[in-house]
């Protein structure tokens, strides 16, 4: 019970002070809109192309809503030392970090549904396999958030967190098959693609929305889950090593 009180209050505080602030909410709305608009203009309009764009826009919305948000907020709290309060609380480190990342994960999931809601007004989404789409959205949010955590542990300044996040995020847009299939990438880039968690998430999203996927859903989701666990375990290990000096 005590643990649950602590968990819920950490999550609630982060939601209130970071994620549910007007600038963040509007960012969550504007961002998918801008991407959709951009591709829409470029692809010369046919409504059908929205179906092929949607998975990429959803993935990007999650990625941009979580990774740097988490990296920046955690680095900020490390810097002003309020993070020490959390490290001093009688909570297992695993629970603490799940609470700390929970807010960003929920924010990422919420961001993912902004483009979906927009698409509802433009195209018919009745064929979408929600049973695969929703778990994929959730796991992409978890993986992107844990990537943010991984970054937060590696840096010590807020601007480094921002820069380092971009270092990961921007290549991922092009390497993970969000808008261009991985098969069409040059051979030497493919191994990198398959080393990135978002590739598997994007594959499920494409499959769920318009049926074009390279691997079985179960394999994609299993690999994505493995990335989540791996990133979390490595981050926790680094926290123990670097923050409890």
């Amino acid at each position, binding site marked *: 019970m*005590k643990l649950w009180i*602590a968990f819920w209050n950490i999550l609630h505080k982060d939601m209130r*002070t970071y994620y549910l602030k007007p600038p963040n909410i509007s960012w969550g709305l504007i961002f998918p809109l801008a991407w959709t608009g951009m591709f829409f203009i470029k692809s010369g309009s046919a409504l059908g192309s929205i179906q092929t764009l949607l998975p990429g826009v959803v993935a990007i919305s999650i990625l941009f809503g979580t990774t740097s948000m988490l990296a920046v907020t955690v680095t900020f709290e490390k810097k002003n030392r309020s993070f020490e*309060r959390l490290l001093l609380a*009688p909570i297992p480190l695993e629970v603490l970090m799940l609470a700390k990342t929970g807010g960003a994960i929920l924010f990422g999931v919420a961001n993912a549904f902004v483009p979906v809601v927009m698409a509802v007004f433009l195209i018919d989404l009745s064929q979408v396999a929600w049973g695969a789409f929703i778990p994929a959205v959730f796991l992409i949010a978890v993986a992107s958030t844990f990537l943010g955590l991984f970054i937060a542990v590696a840096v010590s300044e807020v601007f480094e967190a921002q820069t380092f996040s971009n270092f990961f995020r921007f290549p991922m847009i092009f390497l993970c098959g969000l808008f261009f299939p991985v098969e069409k990438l040059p051979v030497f880039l493919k191994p990198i693609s398959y080393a990135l968690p978002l590739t598997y998430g994007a594959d499920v999203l494409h499959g769920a929305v318009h049926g074009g996927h390279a691997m079985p859903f179960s394999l994609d989701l299993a690999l994505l889950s493995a990335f989540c666990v791996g990133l979390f375990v490595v981050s926790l290990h680094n926290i123990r090593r670097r923050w409890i000096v």
Partner: protein
Amino acid sequence: MIDTIAVAGLRKCFAEVEAVSEISFSVRQGELFGFLGPNGAGKTTTINMLTGLARPDSGTICIGGIDCTGKPRAAQYLVGVVPDESNLYPELTGFDNLCFCAALHGLRKAERQARARELIDIFDLTKAAHRKFGGYSRGMKRRLTIAAGIIHKPEILFLDEPTTGIDVASARQLRHLIADLHRAGTTIFLTTHYIEEAERLCDRIAFIVSGRIVRIDTVDNLVQPMQVKNVVQLTCENALTDIEARLSESFPDLKFNDIGKGLIRVEGDAPIRVGPLVRFLEDQGGEVSEARRMRPSLEDVFVRITGIEADAMRKEKEKAGGGQ
């Protein structure tokens, strides 16, 4: 009595700096233990190791009967910490900060709100309770940080320079509060660079210099060896010319020192009889208003043992700005 904190051979290095070298001490249950030393002595590093924010290079730590060696966070549910710098959330109000800290320790909503209100009242922050912490003055920040450290009524409290950077009235109030917590049975580990504060509050004191503990004892035991000299201070309302020489002539066994403003310091190897001195001064036309037996202060002891001028230590600290 039971040892609430037991530390043996604790050592911590940062790159080339040996911040704490092989210190051993124990703090008994309910004791108020002072950790006194100059800048960079290793006080904060020691607290960090005891509270699970830092990992010792070697040595053992036992807190509240729990062996924390290799498990730095094992005893955190027993402990409250007031860090040397205020580290609450700038974007939350004072009240919300306290409630949040209470929640971290698992207090239920009604309980944490009641406790937060109580502490806000005690620390005289009622008017600022619903303002953001980021906008607090340094003293207000300090007080709220202390309130946050005791919100869950910890059995063991670590206070890292609690009175640095706050005004005299607040500092006094805070000392009363620390004394109250002590009376109520809380074990308190207090670091400070205010020697008078340590002298007034602490049961036992450890002097730490360059990462080493040079002395641990009760205030009385620390002061006693210095008491071999007997010192009396006389106060004259009017200035007397050349009084030092005249006194020395009449009382050859005693040493006199005219420190100005009518104050005369008298030192002797045997206990000093004040009557003849006062009569002599009055015969010389002096109006003696006070004769006081001087007890050596902890400050004298500190200077003697560590060779560090207490004044220099305080000044250095104040220049650096102390806590926030």
